[in-house]
Protein backbone atom coordinates (compact mmCIF):
# COMPACT_ATOMS: atom_id res chain seq x y z
CA UNK A 1 0.00 0.00 0.00
CA UNK A 2 1.11 3.51 -0.75
CA UNK A 3 1.54 6.10 1.95
CA UNK A 4 -1.28 8.51 2.70
CA UNK A 5 -1.06 11.57 0.46
CA UNK A 6 -1.26 14.91 2.26
CA UNK A 7 -2.41 17.82 0.12
CA UNK A 8 -1.61 21.10 1.87
CA UNK A 9 -4.56 23.48 1.78
CA UNK A 10 -2.97 26.71 2.93
CA UNK A 11 -2.34 28.51 -0.36
CA UNK A 12 -5.87 29.74 -0.65
CA UNK A 13 -7.06 33.08 -1.96
CA UNK A 14 -9.53 33.30 0.91
CA UNK A 15 -6.55 34.20 3.10
CA UNK A 16 -6.03 37.99 2.88
CA UNK A 17 -2.24 37.60 2.84
CA UNK A 18 -2.34 35.16 -0.07
CA UNK A 19 -5.01 37.13 -1.92
CA UNK A 20 -2.89 40.25 -1.75
CA UNK A 21 0.23 38.36 -2.83
CA UNK A 22 -1.62 36.89 -5.80
CA UNK A 23 -3.02 40.25 -6.81
CA UNK A 24 0.36 41.93 -6.56
CA UNK A 25 2.35 38.96 -7.88
CA UNK A 26 4.42 39.06 -4.71
CA UNK A 27 6.28 35.73 -4.40
CA UNK A 28 7.40 35.98 -0.77
CA UNK A 29 4.20 35.22 1.18
CA UNK A 30 3.28 32.37 -1.18
CA UNK A 31 6.71 30.73 -1.05
CA UNK A 32 6.79 31.10 2.72
CA UNK A 33 3.48 29.37 3.14
CA UNK A 34 4.41 26.68 0.64
CA UNK A 35 7.67 25.96 2.40
CA UNK A 36 6.00 25.74 5.81
CA UNK A 37 3.65 23.11 4.50
CA UNK A 38 6.36 21.07 2.80
CA UNK A 39 8.54 21.20 5.91
CA UNK A 40 5.57 19.93 7.87
CA UNK A 41 5.23 16.95 5.54
CA UNK A 42 2.83 17.92 2.73
CA UNK A 43 3.15 15.79 -0.41
CA UNK A 44 1.13 18.02 -2.74
CA UNK A 45 0.25 21.71 -2.45
CA UNK A 46 -3.24 22.88 -3.25
CA UNK A 47 -3.14 26.13 -5.17
CA UNK A 48 -6.52 27.81 -4.84
CA UNK A 49 -6.91 30.96 -6.88
CA UNK A 50 -10.69 31.15 -6.40
CA UNK A 51 -13.14 31.65 -9.27
CA UNK A 52 -10.51 33.81 -11.03
CA UNK A 53 -12.82 34.68 -13.84
CA UNK A 54 -10.53 37.37 -15.18
CA UNK A 55 -6.84 36.76 -15.68
CA UNK A 56 -7.02 33.39 -13.97
CA UNK A 57 -4.88 31.71 -16.62
CA UNK A 58 -2.07 34.21 -16.19
CA UNK A 59 -2.27 34.00 -12.41
CA UNK A 60 -2.23 30.19 -12.41
CA UNK A 61 0.76 30.05 -14.76
CA UNK A 62 2.65 32.51 -12.63
CA UNK A 63 1.90 30.67 -9.40
CA UNK A 64 2.68 27.19 -10.76
CA UNK A 65 6.01 28.32 -12.16
CA UNK A 66 6.80 30.21 -9.00
CA UNK A 67 6.17 27.25 -6.72
CA UNK A 68 7.88 24.69 -8.92
CA UNK A 69 10.96 26.75 -9.64
CA UNK A 70 11.46 27.70 -6.00
CA UNK A 71 10.54 24.35 -4.49
CA UNK A 72 12.09 21.59 -6.60
CA UNK A 73 9.11 20.95 -8.86
CA UNK A 74 6.69 20.42 -6.00
CA UNK A 75 3.57 18.63 -7.26
CA UNK A 76 0.51 20.86 -7.29
CA UNK A 77 -3.25 20.53 -7.07
CA UNK A 78 -4.75 23.19 -9.35
CA UNK A 79 -7.81 24.51 -7.60
CA UNK A 80 -10.16 26.91 -9.37
CA UNK A 81 -13.53 27.02 -11.05
CA UNK A 82 -11.85 28.52 -14.11
CA UNK A 83 -11.10 25.71 -16.56
CA UNK A 84 -8.91 27.85 -18.77
CA UNK A 85 -6.78 28.67 -15.73
CA UNK A 86 -6.32 24.96 -14.93
CA UNK A 87 -5.27 24.26 -18.50
CA UNK A 88 -2.90 27.21 -18.45
CA UNK A 89 -1.40 25.88 -15.20
CA UNK A 90 -0.90 22.41 -16.66
CA UNK A 91 0.73 23.86 -19.76
CA UNK A 92 3.67 25.09 -17.68
CA UNK A 93 3.60 22.27 -15.11
CA UNK A 94 6.69 20.07 -14.55
CA UNK A 95 5.76 16.43 -13.81
CA UNK A 96 9.10 15.35 -12.37
CA UNK A 97 7.65 14.90 -8.87
CA UNK A 98 4.11 13.88 -9.77
CA UNK A 99 1.19 14.52 -12.10
CA UNK A 100 -0.87 17.68 -11.68
CA UNK A 101 -4.20 17.29 -9.89
CA UNK A 102 -7.31 18.97 -11.25
CA UNK A 103 -9.46 20.23 -8.36
CA UNK A 104 -12.18 19.37 -9.10
CA UNK A 105 -14.92 17.62 -11.07
CA UNK A 106 -18.39 16.64 -9.90
CA UNK A 107 -21.34 14.89 -11.49
CA UNK A 108 -22.99 18.24 -12.19
CA UNK A 109 -21.76 21.40 -13.88
CA UNK A 110 -18.13 20.53 -13.39
CA UNK A 111 -18.13 17.09 -14.98
CA UNK A 112 -16.17 18.55 -17.89
CA UNK A 113 -13.12 18.74 -15.66
CA UNK A 114 -12.81 14.96 -16.04
CA UNK A 115 -12.39 15.52 -19.77
CA UNK A 116 -9.84 18.18 -19.06
CA UNK A 117 -7.85 15.86 -16.78
CA UNK A 118 -8.09 12.99 -19.29
CA UNK A 119 -6.88 15.19 -22.14
CA UNK A 120 -3.92 16.38 -20.09
CA UNK A 121 -2.90 13.13 -18.34
CA UNK A 122 -3.71 14.66 -14.97
CA UNK A 123 -5.20 13.30 -11.77
CA UNK A 124 -8.75 14.47 -11.17
CA UNK A 125 -10.50 15.00 -7.87
CA UNK A 126 -14.04 13.75 -8.35
CA UNK A 127 -16.72 14.92 -5.96
CA UNK A 128 -19.43 12.34 -5.47
CA UNK A 129 -22.16 14.98 -5.68
CA UNK A 130 -24.16 16.89 -8.23
CA UNK A 131 -25.75 19.92 -6.67
CA UNK A 132 -25.43 20.18 -2.93
CA UNK A 133 -24.95 17.38 -0.45
CA UNK A 134 -26.00 13.90 -1.60
CA UNK A 135 -28.82 12.54 0.50
CA UNK A 136 -27.37 9.07 1.03
CA UNK A 137 -24.68 6.62 -0.10
CA UNK A 138 -26.78 5.26 -2.95
CA UNK A 139 -26.75 8.72 -4.43
CA UNK A 140 -23.02 9.13 -3.75
CA UNK A 141 -22.33 5.81 -5.43
CA UNK A 142 -24.39 6.68 -8.48
CA UNK A 143 -22.31 9.84 -8.98
CA UNK A 144 -19.12 7.92 -8.36
CA UNK A 145 -20.05 5.39 -11.06
CA UNK A 146 -20.93 8.15 -13.47
CA UNK A 147 -17.62 9.91 -12.93
CA UNK A 148 -15.64 6.70 -13.05
CA UNK A 149 -17.29 5.61 -16.28
CA UNK A 150 -16.67 8.94 -17.90
CA UNK A 151 -13.03 8.92 -16.95
CA UNK A 152 -12.48 5.33 -18.06
CA UNK A 153 -14.25 5.95 -21.36
CA UNK A 154 -11.82 8.79 -21.96
CA UNK A 155 -8.93 6.43 -21.33
CA UNK A 156 -8.07 7.49 -17.80
CA UNK A 157 -6.47 5.11 -15.36
CA UNK A 158 -8.85 4.52 -12.41
CA UNK A 159 -5.94 5.40 -10.10
CA UNK A 160 -6.01 8.92 -11.49
CA UNK A 161 -9.53 9.54 -10.22
CA UNK A 162 -9.50 10.43 -6.54
CA UNK A 163 -13.05 10.35 -5.25
CA UNK A 164 -14.23 12.84 -2.69
CA UNK A 165 -16.90 11.41 -0.37
CA UNK A 166 -17.73 14.95 0.81
CA UNK A 167 -16.74 15.49 4.38
CA UNK A 168 -19.60 17.18 6.22
CA UNK A 169 -19.51 19.65 9.03
CA UNK A 170 -20.18 17.89 12.34
CA UNK A 171 -21.93 20.89 13.84
CA UNK A 172 -25.22 20.48 12.04
CA UNK A 173 -24.66 17.15 10.36
CA UNK A 174 -23.55 14.96 13.19
CA UNK A 175 -25.91 12.16 12.22
CA UNK A 176 -24.39 11.88 8.72
CA UNK A 177 -20.79 11.14 9.70
CA UNK A 178 -20.84 7.35 9.95
CA UNK A 179 -22.60 7.05 6.63
CA UNK A 180 -19.89 9.14 4.97
CA UNK A 181 -17.24 6.90 6.56
CA UNK A 182 -19.02 3.84 5.23
CA UNK A 183 -18.87 5.36 1.78
CA UNK A 184 -15.09 5.64 2.07
CA UNK A 185 -15.08 1.92 2.82
CA UNK A 186 -17.13 1.28 -0.32
CA UNK A 187 -14.65 3.25 -2.42
CA UNK A 188 -11.78 1.38 -0.81
CA UNK A 189 -13.43 -2.01 -1.42
CA UNK A 190 -13.71 -1.08 -5.09
CA UNK A 191 -9.98 -0.36 -5.11
CA UNK A 192 -10.54 3.34 -5.74
CA UNK A 193 -8.53 6.19 -4.38
CA UNK A 194 -10.11 8.90 -2.27
CA UNK A 195 -9.46 12.33 -0.86
CA UNK A 196 -11.40 15.33 0.35
CA UNK A 197 -11.54 18.53 2.33
CA UNK A 198 -11.30 16.83 5.68
CA UNK A 199 -11.07 19.90 7.89
CA UNK A 200 -14.61 20.74 6.86
CA UNK A 201 -15.77 18.40 9.64
CA UNK A 202 -14.54 20.76 12.36
CA UNK A 203 -15.80 23.97 10.80
CA UNK A 204 -17.17 26.45 13.32
CA UNK A 205 -15.62 24.61 16.25
CA UNK A 206 -13.30 26.46 18.64
CA UNK A 207 -9.72 26.71 17.41
CA UNK A 208 -8.29 24.42 20.08
CA UNK A 209 -10.83 21.70 19.32
CA UNK A 210 -10.24 21.52 15.57
CA UNK A 211 -6.92 19.59 15.58
CA UNK A 212 -8.44 17.03 17.93
CA UNK A 213 -11.57 16.52 15.86
CA UNK A 214 -9.65 16.50 12.55
CA UNK A 215 -7.21 13.92 13.93
CA UNK A 216 -10.01 11.64 15.06
CA UNK A 217 -11.72 11.97 11.70
CA UNK A 218 -8.56 11.31 9.72
CA UNK A 219 -7.80 8.21 11.79
CA UNK A 220 -11.30 6.81 11.33
CA UNK A 221 -11.25 7.67 7.63
CA UNK A 222 -7.86 6.07 7.03
CA UNK A 223 -9.12 2.99 8.81
CA UNK A 224 -11.96 2.91 6.27
CA UNK A 225 -9.43 3.22 3.45
CA UNK A 226 -9.09 6.94 2.71
CA UNK A 227 -5.90 7.38 0.67
CA UNK A 228 -5.42 11.15 0.80
CA UNK A 229 -6.85 14.34 2.26
CA UNK A 230 -6.69 18.07 1.71
CA UNK A 231 -5.65 19.37 5.12
CA UNK A 232 -3.54 21.84 7.02
CA UNK A 233 -0.18 20.06 7.30
CA UNK A 234 0.97 22.60 9.87
CA UNK A 235 -1.44 20.95 12.31
CA UNK A 236 1.09 18.82 14.17
CA UNK A 237 -1.42 16.63 15.92
CA UNK A 238 -3.06 15.80 12.63
CA UNK A 239 0.24 14.99 10.93
CA UNK A 240 1.36 12.81 13.82
CA UNK A 241 -1.92 10.94 13.56
CA UNK A 242 -1.51 10.43 9.81
CA UNK A 243 2.05 9.15 10.23
CA UNK A 244 0.94 6.78 12.97
CA UNK A 245 -1.91 5.51 10.82
CA UNK A 246 0.54 4.86 7.98
CA UNK A 247 2.54 2.68 10.34
CA UNK A 248 -0.53 0.83 11.61
CA UNK A 249 -1.71 0.17 8.06
CA UNK A 250 1.79 -1.09 7.18
CA UNK A 251 2.17 1.60 4.55
CA UNK A 252 5.51 2.56 6.00
CA UNK A 253 8.01 0.64 8.07
CA UNK A 254 8.17 1.61 11.73
CA UNK A 255 11.34 3.15 13.18
CA UNK A 256 11.59 5.01 16.51
CA UNK A 257 12.04 8.27 14.59
CA UNK A 258 9.02 7.76 12.34
CA UNK A 259 7.44 11.05 13.40
CA UNK A 260 10.52 12.97 12.25
CA UNK A 261 10.56 11.56 8.73
Amino acid at each position, binding site marked *: MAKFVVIGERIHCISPVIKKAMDERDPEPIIKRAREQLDAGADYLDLNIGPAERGGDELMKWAVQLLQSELDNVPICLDTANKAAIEAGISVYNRAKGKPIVNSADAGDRIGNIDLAAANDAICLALCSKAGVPSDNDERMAYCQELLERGMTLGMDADDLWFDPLFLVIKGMQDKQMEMLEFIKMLSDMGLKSTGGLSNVSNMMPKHIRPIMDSAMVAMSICMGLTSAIVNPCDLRLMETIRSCDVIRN*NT*LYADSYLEL
Partner: protein
Amino acid sequence: MAFKAVPQKFAAKINALTIGTGEREISLGGENVFPFYSFDAPIENRPKIGIEIHDRGHYAGVPGMDAYYAGADTLAQTAKRAAAAEGADFLAVSFDGAHPDNGDRSVEDCVAAIKEVADAVDIPLVIEGSKHIEKDAKLFEKIAEALSGRNILVMSAREENYKGIAASVGLAYSQKIGAESAVDINLAKQLNVLISQMGVKSENTAMNLGSAAAGYGFEYVASTVDRVKAAALAQNDTMLQMPIVTPVGSEAWTVKESIVSQEDFPEWGPREIRGINMEVSTAAACLAAGSNAVILRHPESVKTISKLVSQLS
Protein backbone atom coordinates in the same frame (compact mmCIF):
# COMPACT_ATOMS: atom_id res chain seq x y z
CA MET B 1 -4.84 -15.26 -25.03
CA ALA B 2 -1.10 -14.77 -25.36
CA PHE B 3 0.86 -14.19 -22.18
CA LYS B 4 1.97 -10.64 -21.81
CA ALA B 5 4.83 -10.03 -19.39
CA VAL B 6 4.41 -6.87 -17.35
CA PRO B 7 7.79 -5.66 -16.13
CA GLN B 8 7.81 -4.97 -12.41
CA LYS B 9 10.24 -2.13 -12.21
CA PHE B 10 9.87 0.51 -9.58
CA ALA B 11 10.03 4.27 -9.66
CA ALA B 12 12.23 4.06 -6.56
CA LYS B 13 15.70 2.58 -6.63
CA ILE B 14 18.50 1.44 -4.37
CA ASN B 15 21.25 4.04 -3.92
CA ALA B 16 24.44 3.34 -5.81
CA LEU B 17 27.34 3.42 -3.35
CA THR B 18 30.85 3.58 -4.76
CA ILE B 19 33.93 2.31 -2.97
CA GLY B 20 37.54 2.32 -4.04
CA THR B 21 39.19 4.63 -6.54
CA GLY B 22 40.34 4.75 -10.12
CA GLU B 23 39.91 1.74 -12.33
CA ARG B 24 39.14 -0.54 -9.43
CA GLU B 25 36.25 1.58 -8.16
CA ILE B 26 33.04 -0.43 -7.78
CA SER B 27 29.39 0.46 -7.29
CA LEU B 28 27.02 -1.38 -4.97
CA GLY B 29 23.28 -1.17 -5.59
CA GLY B 30 21.59 1.23 -8.00
CA GLU B 31 18.89 -1.19 -9.16
CA ASN B 32 15.14 -0.56 -9.38
CA VAL B 33 14.05 -4.21 -9.46
CA PHE B 34 14.09 -7.16 -7.10
CA PRO B 35 17.28 -9.24 -6.86
CA PHE B 36 18.26 -10.83 -10.20
CA TYR B 37 14.98 -9.73 -11.80
CA SER B 38 16.88 -8.68 -14.88
CA PHE B 39 13.83 -9.62 -16.95
CA ASP B 40 12.02 -6.62 -15.43
CA ALA B 41 14.79 -4.08 -15.98
CA PRO B 42 18.55 -4.23 -16.32
CA ILE B 43 20.37 -4.68 -12.99
CA GLU B 44 22.31 -1.44 -12.66
CA ASN B 45 25.29 -3.05 -10.91
CA ARG B 46 25.68 -6.78 -10.45
CA PRO B 47 26.14 -7.89 -6.83
CA LYS B 48 29.74 -7.66 -5.64
CA ILE B 49 31.92 -10.13 -3.78
CA GLY B 50 34.43 -9.35 -1.10
CA ILE B 51 37.21 -11.60 0.14
CA GLU B 52 37.95 -11.38 3.83
CA ILE B 53 41.31 -11.53 5.58
CA HIS B 54 42.14 -11.20 9.26
CA ASP B 55 44.84 -9.42 11.14
CA ARG B 56 45.41 -12.57 13.17
CA GLY B 57 46.19 -14.60 10.08
CA HIS B 58 44.00 -16.71 7.85
CA TYR B 59 42.04 -19.60 9.22
CA ALA B 60 44.62 -22.29 9.66
CA GLY B 61 43.79 -25.94 9.39
CA VAL B 62 41.88 -25.65 6.12
CA PRO B 63 44.34 -27.11 3.61
CA GLY B 64 43.18 -25.12 0.60
CA MET B 65 43.39 -21.85 2.50
CA ASP B 66 46.77 -22.81 3.97
CA ALA B 67 48.06 -23.47 0.48
CA TYR B 68 46.54 -20.30 -0.95
CA TYR B 69 48.15 -18.08 1.66
CA ALA B 70 51.38 -20.07 2.12
CA GLY B 71 54.37 -17.80 2.63
CA ALA B 72 52.29 -14.68 3.23
CA ASP B 73 53.54 -13.59 6.62
CA THR B 74 52.27 -10.04 6.91
CA LEU B 75 48.82 -8.59 6.54
CA ALA B 76 49.98 -6.78 3.41
CA GLN B 77 51.27 -9.99 1.81
CA THR B 78 48.05 -11.78 2.72
CA ALA B 79 46.10 -8.89 1.25
CA LYS B 80 47.98 -9.17 -2.02
CA ARG B 81 47.16 -12.85 -2.30
CA ALA B 82 43.51 -12.29 -1.44
CA ALA B 83 43.17 -9.42 -3.87
CA ALA B 84 44.31 -11.71 -6.66
CA ALA B 85 41.54 -14.25 -5.96
CA GLU B 86 39.40 -14.98 -8.99
CA GLY B 87 36.10 -13.11 -8.70
CA ALA B 88 37.03 -10.82 -5.82
CA ASP B 89 35.70 -7.27 -6.27
CA PHE B 90 36.90 -5.89 -2.96
CA LEU B 91 39.01 -6.82 0.03
CA ALA B 92 37.56 -6.90 3.54
CA VAL B 93 40.10 -6.60 6.34
CA SER B 94 38.96 -7.72 9.75
CA PHE B 95 40.75 -6.57 12.88
CA ASP B 96 39.58 -9.22 15.38
CA GLY B 97 42.99 -8.97 17.02
CA ALA B 98 42.14 -5.48 18.23
CA HIS B 99 39.47 -6.84 20.56
CA PRO B 100 40.59 -6.63 24.19
CA ASP B 101 39.89 -10.36 24.56
CA ASN B 102 41.82 -11.32 21.44
CA GLY B 103 45.17 -9.67 22.09
CA ASP B 104 44.06 -6.03 22.28
CA ARG B 105 46.20 -4.96 19.37
CA SER B 106 46.77 -1.23 19.55
CA VAL B 107 45.09 1.20 17.20
CA GLU B 108 48.54 2.41 16.07
CA ASP B 109 49.55 -1.14 15.10
CA CYS B 110 46.34 -1.65 13.19
CA VAL B 111 46.75 1.63 11.35
CA ALA B 112 50.33 0.79 10.41
CA ALA B 113 49.20 -2.60 9.11
CA ILE B 114 46.31 -1.23 7.05
CA LYS B 115 48.59 1.42 5.55
CA GLU B 116 50.87 -1.33 4.31
CA VAL B 117 47.84 -3.12 2.91
CA ALA B 118 46.68 0.03 1.16
CA ASP B 119 50.11 0.46 -0.38
CA ALA B 120 50.23 -3.15 -1.51
CA VAL B 121 46.84 -3.41 -3.25
CA ASP B 122 44.62 -1.16 -5.35
CA ILE B 123 41.43 -3.19 -4.88
CA PRO B 124 38.64 -1.35 -2.94
CA LEU B 125 38.91 -1.80 0.82
CA VAL B 126 36.28 -2.60 3.40
CA ILE B 127 37.30 -2.40 7.04
CA GLU B 128 35.73 -4.70 9.58
CA GLY B 129 36.42 -4.00 13.22
CA SER B 130 36.95 -6.07 16.31
CA LYS B 131 33.24 -6.03 17.28
CA HIS B 132 34.22 -4.18 20.44
CA ILE B 133 32.09 -1.02 20.63
CA GLU B 134 34.59 1.45 22.09
CA LYS B 135 37.67 0.03 20.45
CA ASP B 136 36.05 0.05 17.03
CA ALA B 137 35.02 3.69 17.34
CA LYS B 138 38.67 4.66 17.89
CA LEU B 139 40.03 2.20 15.37
CA PHE B 140 37.68 3.29 12.60
CA GLU B 141 38.44 6.95 13.12
CA LYS B 142 42.18 6.43 12.80
CA ILE B 143 41.90 4.08 9.83
CA ALA B 144 39.54 6.44 8.05
CA GLU B 145 42.09 9.21 8.58
CA ALA B 146 45.06 7.10 7.47
CA LEU B 147 43.31 5.90 4.31
CA SER B 148 41.94 9.30 3.45
CA GLY B 149 41.17 9.48 -0.27
CA ARG B 150 40.91 5.68 -0.72
CA ASN B 151 37.11 5.80 -0.49
CA ILE B 152 36.85 2.87 1.92
CA LEU B 153 33.74 1.35 3.47
CA VAL B 154 33.90 1.03 7.24
CA MET B 155 31.84 -1.80 8.74
CA SER B 156 30.16 -1.12 10.96
CA ALA B 157 28.50 1.63 12.90
CA ARG B 158 26.11 0.25 15.48
CA GLU B 159 23.42 1.79 17.64
CA GLU B 160 25.93 2.20 20.48
CA ASN B 161 28.73 3.89 18.54
CA TYR B 162 27.28 5.39 15.38
CA LYS B 163 27.70 9.00 16.56
CA GLY B 164 31.47 9.00 16.74
CA ILE B 165 31.84 6.91 13.62
CA ALA B 166 29.44 9.06 11.59
CA ALA B 167 31.24 12.22 12.70
CA SER B 168 34.76 10.96 12.02
CA VAL B 169 34.55 8.36 9.26
CA GLY B 170 31.60 9.88 7.42
CA LEU B 171 31.93 13.60 7.93
CA ALA B 172 35.57 14.38 8.75
CA TYR B 173 37.17 11.89 6.31
CA SER B 174 34.35 11.42 3.76
CA GLN B 175 34.57 7.62 3.79
CA LYS B 176 31.61 5.28 3.47
CA ILE B 177 29.79 3.83 6.47
CA GLY B 178 28.04 0.52 6.98
CA ALA B 179 25.16 0.68 9.46
CA GLU B 180 24.96 -2.58 11.35
CA SER B 181 21.89 -4.04 13.00
CA ALA B 182 21.22 -7.60 14.04
CA VAL B 183 18.29 -8.87 11.98
CA ASP B 184 15.98 -6.15 13.31
CA ILE B 185 14.21 -4.34 10.52
CA ASN B 186 12.96 -1.44 12.63
CA LEU B 187 16.37 -0.84 14.13
CA ALA B 188 17.92 -1.02 10.67
CA LYS B 189 15.73 1.84 9.54
CA GLN B 190 16.20 3.76 12.77
CA LEU B 191 19.97 3.56 12.52
CA ASN B 192 19.84 4.91 8.98
CA VAL B 193 17.67 7.78 10.19
CA LEU B 194 20.06 8.57 13.04
CA ILE B 195 23.14 8.46 10.81
CA SER B 196 21.48 10.68 8.22
CA GLN B 197 20.43 13.08 10.96
CA MET B 198 24.13 13.39 11.82
CA GLY B 199 24.60 14.83 8.34
CA VAL B 200 25.94 11.76 6.52
CA LYS B 201 24.30 11.50 3.11
CA SER B 202 22.23 8.37 2.52
CA GLU B 203 24.23 7.81 -0.66
CA ASN B 204 27.32 7.30 1.50
CA THR B 205 25.83 4.61 3.68
CA ALA B 206 25.45 0.86 3.32
CA MET B 207 23.54 -1.53 5.54
CA ASN B 208 24.71 -4.66 7.24
CA LEU B 209 21.39 -6.14 8.32
CA GLY B 210 23.09 -9.02 10.07
CA SER B 211 23.43 -12.58 8.93
CA ALA B 212 23.24 -16.20 9.95
CA ALA B 213 24.52 -19.35 8.31
CA ALA B 214 22.02 -21.31 6.27
CA GLY B 215 20.13 -23.52 8.70
CA TYR B 216 20.87 -21.29 11.69
CA GLY B 217 17.88 -18.98 11.73
CA PHE B 218 18.57 -17.87 8.21
CA GLU B 219 14.86 -17.48 7.47
CA TYR B 220 14.83 -14.39 9.72
CA VAL B 221 17.67 -12.91 7.72
CA ALA B 222 15.96 -13.70 4.44
CA SER B 223 12.65 -12.18 5.49
CA THR B 224 14.36 -9.08 6.90
CA VAL B 225 16.34 -8.48 3.72
CA ASP B 226 13.23 -9.19 1.68
CA ARG B 227 11.10 -6.69 3.58
CA VAL B 228 13.80 -4.03 3.47
CA LYS B 229 14.03 -4.36 -0.31
CA ALA B 230 10.25 -4.29 -0.65
CA ALA B 231 9.92 -1.15 1.49
CA ALA B 232 12.80 0.51 -0.36
CA LEU B 233 11.36 -0.17 -3.81
CA ALA B 234 7.59 -0.52 -3.48
CA GLN B 235 7.09 2.09 -0.73
CA ASN B 236 9.95 4.33 -1.82
CA ASP B 237 11.29 4.39 1.74
CA THR B 238 14.38 6.55 1.40
CA MET B 239 15.64 5.41 4.78
CA LEU B 240 15.97 1.85 3.48
CA GLN B 241 17.42 2.45 0.03
CA MET B 242 21.00 1.86 1.06
CA PRO B 243 22.73 -1.15 -0.54
CA ILE B 244 23.05 -4.22 1.66
CA VAL B 245 26.44 -5.71 2.44
CA THR B 246 26.38 -9.07 4.20
CA PRO B 247 29.38 -10.69 5.87
CA VAL B 248 28.85 -14.39 5.23
CA GLY B 249 32.20 -16.00 5.97
CA SER B 250 32.15 -15.09 9.65
CA GLU B 251 28.86 -16.98 10.02
CA ALA B 252 29.44 -19.87 7.65
CA TRP B 253 32.85 -20.83 9.05
CA THR B 254 31.80 -20.81 12.71
CA VAL B 255 28.95 -23.33 12.69
CA LYS B 256 29.28 -26.99 13.53
CA GLU B 257 29.26 -28.16 9.92
CA SER B 258 32.37 -26.11 9.20
CA ILE B 259 34.23 -26.76 12.44
CA VAL B 260 34.09 -30.39 13.46
CA SER B 261 36.89 -32.57 12.21
CA GLN B 262 36.65 -35.46 9.81
CA GLU B 263 38.08 -37.73 12.53
CA ASP B 264 35.08 -37.00 14.74
CA PHE B 265 32.54 -37.17 11.89
CA PRO B 266 34.01 -39.36 9.19
CA GLU B 267 30.69 -39.67 7.36
CA TRP B 268 30.61 -35.88 6.88
CA GLY B 269 33.71 -35.85 4.75
CA PRO B 270 36.48 -33.23 4.63
CA ARG B 271 35.96 -30.11 6.71
CA GLU B 272 37.08 -27.77 3.98
CA ILE B 273 34.42 -28.90 1.52
CA ARG B 274 31.75 -28.58 4.17
CA GLY B 275 32.88 -25.05 5.00
CA ILE B 276 32.87 -24.00 1.38
CA ASN B 277 29.42 -25.51 0.93
CA MET B 278 28.07 -23.64 3.93
CA GLU B 279 29.63 -20.42 2.70
CA VAL B 280 28.40 -20.79 -0.87
CA SER B 281 24.85 -21.79 0.04
CA THR B 282 24.53 -18.98 2.59
CA ALA B 283 25.94 -16.41 0.18
CA ALA B 284 23.69 -17.53 -2.67
CA ALA B 285 20.66 -17.27 -0.39
CA CYS B 286 21.69 -13.78 0.79
CA LEU B 287 22.08 -12.59 -2.78
CA ALA B 288 18.73 -14.06 -3.75
CA ALA B 289 17.11 -12.23 -0.83
CA GLY B 290 18.67 -8.91 -1.81
CA SER B 291 22.25 -8.44 -0.58
CA ASN B 292 24.16 -6.16 -2.92
CA ALA B 293 27.46 -7.57 -1.72
CA VAL B 294 28.63 -10.57 0.29
CA ILE B 295 31.90 -11.02 2.15
CA LEU B 296 33.44 -14.49 1.92
CA ARG B 297 36.56 -16.17 3.25
CA HIS B 298 37.51 -19.05 1.02
CA PRO B 299 38.90 -18.24 -2.44
CA GLU B 300 36.97 -21.22 -3.81
CA SER B 301 33.71 -19.75 -2.47
CA VAL B 302 34.55 -16.39 -4.03
CA LYS B 303 35.13 -18.05 -7.39
CA THR B 304 31.91 -20.07 -7.19
CA ILE B 305 29.68 -17.16 -6.17
CA SER B 306 31.30 -14.95 -8.76
CA LYS B 307 30.35 -17.47 -11.43
CA LEU B 308 26.80 -17.67 -10.08
CA VAL B 309 26.45 -13.89 -10.14
CA SER B 310 27.85 -13.47 -13.62
CA GLN B 311 25.54 -16.14 -15.02
CA LEU B 312 22.45 -14.68 -13.34
CA SER B 313 23.14 -11.00 -14.03
